[in-house]
């Protein structure tokens, strides 16, 4: 097994790192990419090498989703590492980062090791845990960044909650510099969001719901950028959702600050109009916002202000959503809709395919210093074979995730994962003959 060789022939090779976009062959040997290129095996594949005919479809690095809630430990009735892994593979994701707002919170080395063990047992997607910035997500005392990073935490966040106390954020950014670690912020001023349950604006007013103003995100991002400038730390805005915050990040980057951000597909695919008739499946934090904000997210992805696309995959059981809007849980599942929703940006003429793939693979991998997300000789053979054009309709009942909370059910989309390969092994194929 370890030196098994497979040639993916007749593939449209797409690599955002090298800019490669050409029909050719990719050869894996064991868990690594052994070779690739348009000219490889031009005279036929030698004997003894298994071949997979890609039928001219796209072969890219497997997707890297830097923002996923796997719910384990603590909320295994919503999702487990095993079911989240199946969901990821079905969506073309080969690496994901799980968030630490579990129960117990991932704030010590033992929990990092637990996540690693459960991921190993699932034998699926690669799981790179984020650890909490503060113990118990209480926003007070820093976790052991150095020891957690040594154990395998790839970044730090209190996601789900913002780091509200400015002194704590300052010290976190400053202390993280010791080990050159990234602090990811759920940017929200809770005193401004108050009891809001959807975006502030006309729709909220018509529905009689309390709104969450855009300024609650902007204020926090502005504050944090000042703290980044003061501390020279590395800072990342999770699930950015407002035009103003994107602009803050754009200006911070122009000033040379180490500030990055990610956007979720729902924030460039939907608006507050999609809340419609109190649809709790369209409730998330940050909320779906106005069309002007949605187009600003698209612009941010186009000009590179937004580095990565990440799902904020947030599984919830039915009971958490079958509630009045104000009481329903925040969040939607996203792993199995990530690829087609992102491809809407390509089909809609907003982003070239390689630029789009960069935000889904190489960019998050580079932010987190992961060796994945590229087609390169010697790199891990984490690959995604996808049909760029295939039309289909999202059907949440087919989701591998334990939870079905998606606002995209019934949406006609284009583009689909055909095969997902991790360390050279095909762990998902669309027609179902998943090889182990």
């Amino acid at each position, binding site marked *: 097994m370890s030196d098994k060789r497979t040639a993916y022939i007749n593939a449209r090779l797409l690599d955002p790192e090298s800019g490669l976009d050409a029909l050719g062959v990719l050869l894996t040997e064991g868990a690594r990419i052994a070779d690739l290129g348009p000219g490889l095996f031009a005279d036929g594949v030698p004997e003894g090498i298994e071949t997979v005919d890609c039928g001219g479809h796209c072969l890219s690095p497997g997707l890297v989703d830097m923002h996923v809630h796997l719910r384990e430990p603590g909320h295994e009735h919503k999702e487990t590492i095993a079911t989240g892994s199946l969901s990821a593979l079905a969506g073309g994701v080969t690496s994901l980062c799980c968030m630490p707002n579990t129960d117990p919170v991932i704030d010590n080395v033992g929990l990092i090791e637990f996540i690693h063990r459960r991921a190993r047992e699932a034998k699926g997607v690669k799981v790179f845990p984020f650890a909490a910035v503060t*113990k118990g997500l209480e926003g*007070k*005392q*820093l*976790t*052991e*960044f*150095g*020891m957690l990073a040594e154990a395998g935490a790839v970044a730090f966040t209190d996601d789900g909650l913002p780091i509200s106390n400015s*002194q*704590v954020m300052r*010290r*976190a950014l*400053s*202390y993280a*510099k*010791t080990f050159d670690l990234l602090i990811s912020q759920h940017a929200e001023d809770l005193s401004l969001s108050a009891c809001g349950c959807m975006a502030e604006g006309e729709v909220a007013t018509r529905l009689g719901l309390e709104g969450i103003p855009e300024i609650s995100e902007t204020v926090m991002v502005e504050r944090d950028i000042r703290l980044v400038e003061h*501390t020279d730390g590395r800072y990342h805005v999770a699930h950015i959702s407002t035009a103003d915050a994107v602009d803050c990040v754009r200006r911070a980057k122009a000033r040379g600050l180490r500030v990055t951000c990610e956007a979720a597909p729902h924030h460039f695919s939907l608006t507050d109009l999609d809340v419609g008739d109190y649809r709790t499946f369209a409730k998330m934090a940050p909320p779906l916002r106005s069309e002007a904000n949605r187009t600003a997210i698209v612009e941010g992805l186009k000009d590179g202000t937004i580095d990565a696309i990440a799902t904020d995959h947030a599984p919830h059981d039915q009971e958490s959503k079958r509630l009045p809007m104000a009481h329903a849980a925040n969040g939607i599942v996203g792993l199995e809709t990530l690829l087609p929703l992102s491809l809407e940006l390509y089909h809609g003429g907003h982003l070239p395919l390689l630029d789009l793939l960069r935000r889904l693979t190489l960019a998050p991998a580079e932010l987190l210093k992961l060796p994945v997300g590229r087609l390169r000789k010697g790199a891990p053979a984490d690959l995604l074979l996808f049909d760029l054009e295939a039309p289909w309709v999202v059907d949440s009942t087919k989701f591998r995730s334990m939870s079905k909370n998606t606002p995209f059910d019934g949406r006609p989309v284009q583009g689909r994962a055909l095969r997902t390969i991790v360390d050279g092994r095909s762990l998902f194929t669309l027609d179902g003959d998943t090889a182990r």
Partner: protein
Amino acid sequence: MQPVSRPNALAQRDLLGIEGLSPDRVSAILDLSESYVALNRNAHKKSDVLRGRTLILLFFETSTRTRTSFELAGKRLGADVINISVASSAIKKGETLIDTAMTLNAMHPDVIVVRHPDAGAVRLLANHVNCSVINAGDGSHEHPTQALLDALTIRNHKGRLDGLRVAICGDVLHSRVARSNILLLNMMGSQVRLVAPPTLVPPAVERLGVEVFHDMRRGLEECDIIMMLRLQAERMQGTFVPSTREYFRYFGLDEEKLAMARPDALIMHPGPMNRGVEIDSRVADDITRSAILEQVELGLAVRQACLDMLGREPESA
């Protein structure tokens, strides 16, 4: 042999900090200190240079070694030594610092040694008395006799103070010892490095002429002197460093990190030590490397020299 000091050798009334001293004066203090080191090793340790003089020790913070060291220094020089502890004094009853200063001044002491938790408080007190004042530590500002005793320890081992590479490691942010040492060592021509997590490095400290390292292994490379500082846990509220075990792992001096320094590097610590927090016991107790107890011995001599130079009556020369 009696140590010989010139009256007014410091040409200043007070010793409030290293700031304001010149290399010549530092050398003069260290030279005189050396003669007291010799005297202290005799069976007969007393002198009478300060006979009839009054020394008041006024400590607004708890202290064992500094206070004992000053008290013993005063007594060995023949002075009358008065201890005022905050717990049993009028300060507890709400007296202001300036009132305390003026009250003590009315009793005509010759030297007051002051420690205070607030930076600048010793200078404020000095402005309201007629006698000499020695700063025994004010907040995170200065602790000049500690820097002088550290310098004497280094000079004893290395024969010089110039051209040495010194790493000051740990809680620099809260440390008056670090500030006084940076000033003194820079003045005497050493190269000073700070080794600490960014949260424990004071802002703009590079302006004091130091190089800052956040990686202790790199910071200790080729160092002649390693000065460890106490992690002042009582001043932390959980966000400077996450835990003492993480601190020890990355910023505690153990044999592995020590191996990065020069083979003859000297290990120093102003005390009190937190073993297993900023320093490993095996390193602290290694008598071939550690000068920690010698620092205490030389500290007494340095304080005798300072009291001698400031407290001796000009006419007695």
